[in-house]
């Protein structure tokens, strides 16, 4: 299945686009998604603090993803 991922802040810069597609086998979990995402964009795995949301809620690692899920990568921002 193809998962659409919205990238915000520094993750947008690392991914090089506002939205990226991550291809996953059916039945994949958030943990599988992270593995695939980080292999596609190794610099994302170096972020110590990254909030991954699925359908506007914090994504637990064991959560199973569906193709229509909305995934968002939200890094911290400190500017003021």
């Amino acid at each position, binding site marked *: 299945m193809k998962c659409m991922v*919205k990238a*915000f*802040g*520094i993750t947008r*810069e*690392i991914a090089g686009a506002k939205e990226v597609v991550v291809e996953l086998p059916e039945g994949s979990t958030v943990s599988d998604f992270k593995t695939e995402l980080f292999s596609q964009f190794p*610099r994302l795995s*170096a*972020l*110590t*603090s990254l*909030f991954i*949301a699925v359908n*506007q*809620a*914090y994504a637990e690692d064991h959560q199973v993803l569906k193709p229509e899920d909305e995934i*968002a990568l*939200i*890094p*911290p*921002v*400190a*500017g*003021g």
Partner: protein
Amino acid sequence: MNKLTPEELTRYSRHLVLKDFGKENQEKLKKSRVLMVGAGGLGCPALLYLVAAGIGKIGIIDFDDVQESNLQRQVLFNTHDVGENKALAAKKHLAKLNPFVTIFPYAEKLTSKNALKLFADYEIVLDGSDNFPTRYLVNDACVLTGKALIYGSILQYEGQLSVLNVRSTDGSHSQNYRDLFPESPQPHEVPNCEQAGVLGVLPGTVGSLMANEAIKLITGIGDPLINKLLIFDSLTLQTLTVSIPNRNSRANIKELIDYDDFCGLNDQKDKSLSMKEITVQELKSLLDTNADFQLIDVREVHEFEQANIGGEHIPMAEVPHQIERIETTKQVVMHCRSGGRSGNIIQWLEKNHGFNNLYNLKGGILAWAKEIDSSLDVS
């Protein structure tokens, strides 16, 4: 003493006629005490609206002075304020806007030593600071003193907003910043506005929303952004709201700590002691003698285009993808604007790729412009 005077009734008349707002809520505003941390991009618009709305007592803490590069977005200040402390300059302008508001400026840095005492005098804290150590300090101090925290932050074209640590009727508190981001990013991971820029109007939007949420919390109207994070994208005008999980982070906040240490800045200081440096004079003599070395400029494209000293251009974020461009067998001098970014990337290269031939240009291109070539436009 919280009764409105005839002058105030006139001044706030648009609130008083507003359905579901009225005199009672205006009096709540008059009775309230709000502390603004940082009178910068977010603080300026938030303060303007809070003072205009008639908050009774407003504290402003900021140790920084107004700089020319602030004026593109920090709309409380003007050209004449450059060099003046921000908290004091803010008070000067805001006092003219509304004489019915008492304003307390604190021209000092918020620290683990003064935060709890300062926060005790206020009901709501707005965080418009510009760095991670202060963000965690403000959060923890709000948790320890039981104050509601209105969090806003910005970078480039995006802003974040949330209403944190709000006490509910059963005495429990809503999620705080550590439920959202338990770990602080390390120093090189996320750039700041000086490095990555910020659209001037963005803090205007996010700072105004912070004032909006403060007024809602004080009066009880509407639904404040509790247990939610809003992300605002100024390029598309789209917002995304996500819920913040309860990670029970309060249990770990027992006292204020060393936040530079928590955010990895002390490690950086330790490491930078061992990092090799070169002065602008030493660099000049390398260039004058045609020495065999490599000079790399890690600033952003717009900075490089404005002025450069002939280094090879690899923007900091590109360095990890272009490692092969960095010489391994001769001296390499790396520079940025003032030495911070190039120092960070040198540490990263030493740690992750085993380089031992990298030298950080002390003071960056700013020092070069100051001491070697004053015709360079690095403003």
